[in-house]
């Protein structure tokens, strides 16, 4: 703590500008805070949390330190039924907070139906829908089993999953393999082509990938890859071209040396090379393993999960245990593929906002000028997007740096108090799913999480 007397004053002015002017006229360094009243309905909760500010600060320091210290290591490949707790043959996991069949959006239903057929739980699509409606399947969020899934995020028992280990805190996270763009299960597509690809991923890709990993002789440090990818124009959510390339480069020698049918190895290499988003399904569990390391710290106001099921957007705080705080999933403001428009868009869906939770995605937008047009602006807007996120984030990343911001670390650790106080919402950039199952991705853009979720979270933390 700096003494006040006998040192140069540096003043943060919140409120009337006149006082800042007056200080500047006396040649005092003044930082003008653009203070606004907090989100209505949170005043009492914020006041109640105020006396605990120091305890919360210590808890938040710990949470951000854990996110930062975690080492997401790609360790191997397994099967959902073996890896995920309580994964029965009839369990179907999904993205976002908990939801029943009746409330599921089109793409999520489509993916559930596809997974049921893929698992042999239903004879055909109509059968799957009927069984889903009659309670034949057990639904649950990926997040509650250590997993994450992009878009619909549907995971069923036989699906192969990558295993990301964090040796520092001893936790793991899991994710399915990315299926590519177009007609894919995660966008609710479930026709024969989709099912055939799922089978190929299970039978060929997972095996080749696992053996190549094993051949490398040790896990792959995903933080290192993501950190490099950020300096190559990725932001780790909507652009994964550099991450995918770096991953493939890392795997390449092992793939070449791999025993077994060369055609399979080549097909896998071709599949990864042809799918810019392959790395998303590694960036997500890498993010999850870091965020989970920061969960469960008493009094911490840091967000450790943001996830959408296409109907609701849910968040979890480090200091409030397993509770979800939800609000309606937003509509995405973005660019559409030819022939589609906002009327085709499904509300926001997917666990991929786990990347924003640890300082990637929208929080690292400044690193990705190549996709800035999705934001509807120029590179300056991308810089401003990241800059705005520092206002609601507790810390800055050591490893994820933004070249055009002078290699400043990305903002990490969303403080729910700051979200409601500043009324600045986390900046999320995401893909847009068609509202009908099976059509696939129709665009990409920006979405605002519902303020309601943060209001509920702050109130819960304040015990009101």
């Amino acid at each position, binding site marked *: 703590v700096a003494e006040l007397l006998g040192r140069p004053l540096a003043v943060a002015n919140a409120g009337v500008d006149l006082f800042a002017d007056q200080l500047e006229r*006396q040649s005092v360094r003044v930082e003008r805070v653009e203070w606004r009243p907090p989100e209505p309905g949170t*005043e009492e909760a914020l006041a109640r949390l105020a006396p605990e500010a120091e305890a919360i600060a210590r808890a938040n320091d710990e949470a951000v330190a854990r996110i930062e210290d975690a080492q997401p290591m790609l360790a191997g490949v397994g099967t959902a039924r073996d890896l995920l707790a309580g994964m029965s043959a009839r369990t179907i996991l999904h993205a976002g907070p908990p939801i029943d069949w009746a409330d599921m959006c089109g793409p999520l239903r489509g993916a559930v139906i596809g997974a049921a057929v893929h698992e042999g739980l239903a004879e055909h699509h109509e059968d799957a829908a009927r069984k889903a409606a009659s309670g034949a399947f057990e639904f649950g969020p990926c997040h509650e089993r250590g997993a994450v899934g992009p878009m619909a995020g549907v995971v069923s028992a036989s699906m192969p999953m990558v295993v990301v280990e964090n040796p520092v805190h001893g936790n793991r996270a899991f994710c399915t393999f990315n299926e590519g763009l177009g007609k894919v299960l995660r966008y609710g597509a479930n026709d024969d082509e989709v099912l055939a690809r799922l089978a190929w991923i299970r039978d060929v890709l997972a095996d080749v990938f696992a053996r190549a990993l094993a051949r490398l002789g040790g896990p792959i440090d995903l933080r290192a890859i993501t950190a490099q990818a950020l300096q190559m124009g990725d932001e780790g959510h909507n652009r994964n071209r550099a991450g995918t390339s770096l991953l493939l480069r890392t795997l390449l020698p092992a793939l070449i040396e791999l025993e077994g049918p060369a055609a399979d190895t080549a097909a896998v290499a071709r599949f990864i090379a042809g799918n810019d988003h392959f790395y998303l399904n590694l960036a997500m569990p890498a993010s999850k393993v870091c965020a989970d390391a920061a969960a469960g710290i008493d009094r911490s106001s840091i967000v450790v999960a943001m996830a959408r099921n296409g109907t609701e957007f849910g968040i979890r705080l480090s200091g409030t245990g397993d509770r979800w705080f939800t609000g309606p999933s937003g509509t995405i403001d973005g660019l559409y593929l030819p022939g589609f428009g906002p009327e085709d868009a499904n509300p926001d869906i997917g666990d991929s906002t786990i990347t924003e939770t640890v300082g990637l995605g929208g929080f690292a937008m400044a690193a990705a000028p190549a996709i800035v047009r999705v934001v509807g602006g120029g590179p300056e807007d991308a810089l401003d997007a990241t800059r705005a996120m520092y206002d609601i984030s507790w810390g800055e990343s050591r490893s994820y740096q933004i070249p055009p911001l002078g290699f400043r670390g990305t903002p990490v650790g969303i403080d729910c108090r700051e979200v409601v106080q500043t009324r600045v919402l986390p900046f999320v950039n995401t893909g847009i799913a068609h509202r009908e199952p099976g059509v696939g991705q129709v665009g990409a853009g920006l979405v605002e999480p519902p303020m309601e979720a943060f209001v509920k979270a702050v109130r819960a933390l304040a015990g009101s």
Partner: protein
Amino acid sequence: MTEHVIVRRGAYYDSVTLMLVSRAAAAEAGAKAVAVGMATPLNLELLAGQGFTVDADLGPNDLVIAIRAADPDQVVAAVDRELSAKATTTPRAETPAARSLSSAARRHPELSLAFLSIPGDHVAHEAAAALAVGMHVFCFSDGVSLEVEAALKRTAVERGLLFMGADCGTAIIDGVALGFANAVRRGPVGIVGASGTGIQEVCCLLDSAGVGVSHAIGVGGRDLSAEVGGLMMRRGLELLARDDDTQAIVAISKPPDPQVAQAIEQAADETAKSVVLGFELTLEQAATRAAELVGGVLPAPGEELNKPPRPGDVRGLFAGGTLCSEAERIVGRGRFVDFGDDEYTQGRAHPMIDPSLRLEHLAAAARDPAVEVLLLDVVLGYGAHPDPATELAAAIDGLDQHVIVALCGAADDPQDLTKQRETLERAGAVVTRSNAHAARLAKEASGG
């Protein structure tokens, strides 16, 4: 010379960062060789070339810090400092402003004081955030509950910080005027006060005697209440006692809680410097004694009434709370209104900035045939109205009644003390330098 090789597995940094870190650490005293790099084959070869031995099983995601130095720990500390140093960029004009104090503090760790003038309901959160990051707080905002104020001050004490306020009008820290404060010269007297205009009056009286102020610490009008217990006045006394620029200390407050007053007296007794406790003195007396302690002399007030006394009511219309209560005590009768009170500042600016409400009441009082003496204060200085005398002069010009104005200002104030005095005198007012003297004249003018 000691050799030191540290390996941090999985700690990835890009090569440019590490080259910058190596360069900075190599500048540390006694450093002979510093190599900080990822264990890439190339770097391992370079390390071997420098004579360092490293484990063979390292990979390109492992950080190696290799040092040869007189005091390797010092160089390691330098490396860690550089690795954790936040990158800073030159802020561009269009960079959006921070929207909260915590955010401002994160951006600019050098910020030392939070100046709050936000609505009182929101002070608890922002002030707590400021204290949590180690900023002192000047809380101009009013409307903060006593409970919140006490809690914030307890936190401040724990953290070794100052919480000035709530409803703190003034402070002078190292010559910097915060809030409503006067451009007084710097000098040997330190002031700590639970009263904004009380501090201003003492500052200005001292200034008129050629005695300067080291620091003036406002602590908020309720600091000496039983609930708050004088936490910040005690802290202020401590700070001034330790401060090399301060020779003598004045503590002023509206009438304090008796037990708290006792505690402050005890704290003052334990202070190695001379302390004038002004709780039972007029501000004039407090300033006189403080001046004496540092070898100064406050000139005796010489202003006199400009017409014969006229028995009748006294109406006190004040912008400063302490000035108002002091005058009321001295006059002993009449009606006194403090327009700076919360009751009159809801939804409008303080009367030192916006005189309109007081001028309305002045006009009404002037029309009241029972009122023979109008007693007012005019407070100059930073933050105050740019020319209060001209507006007030227009309102009193031609009035029959005695108009007595206590003019609280310093010669260097932006409003021009002499011009303000002349403007008021031309309009028929008796203008005094001391508030107590204005009150004495008002008493005399109304028939004693």
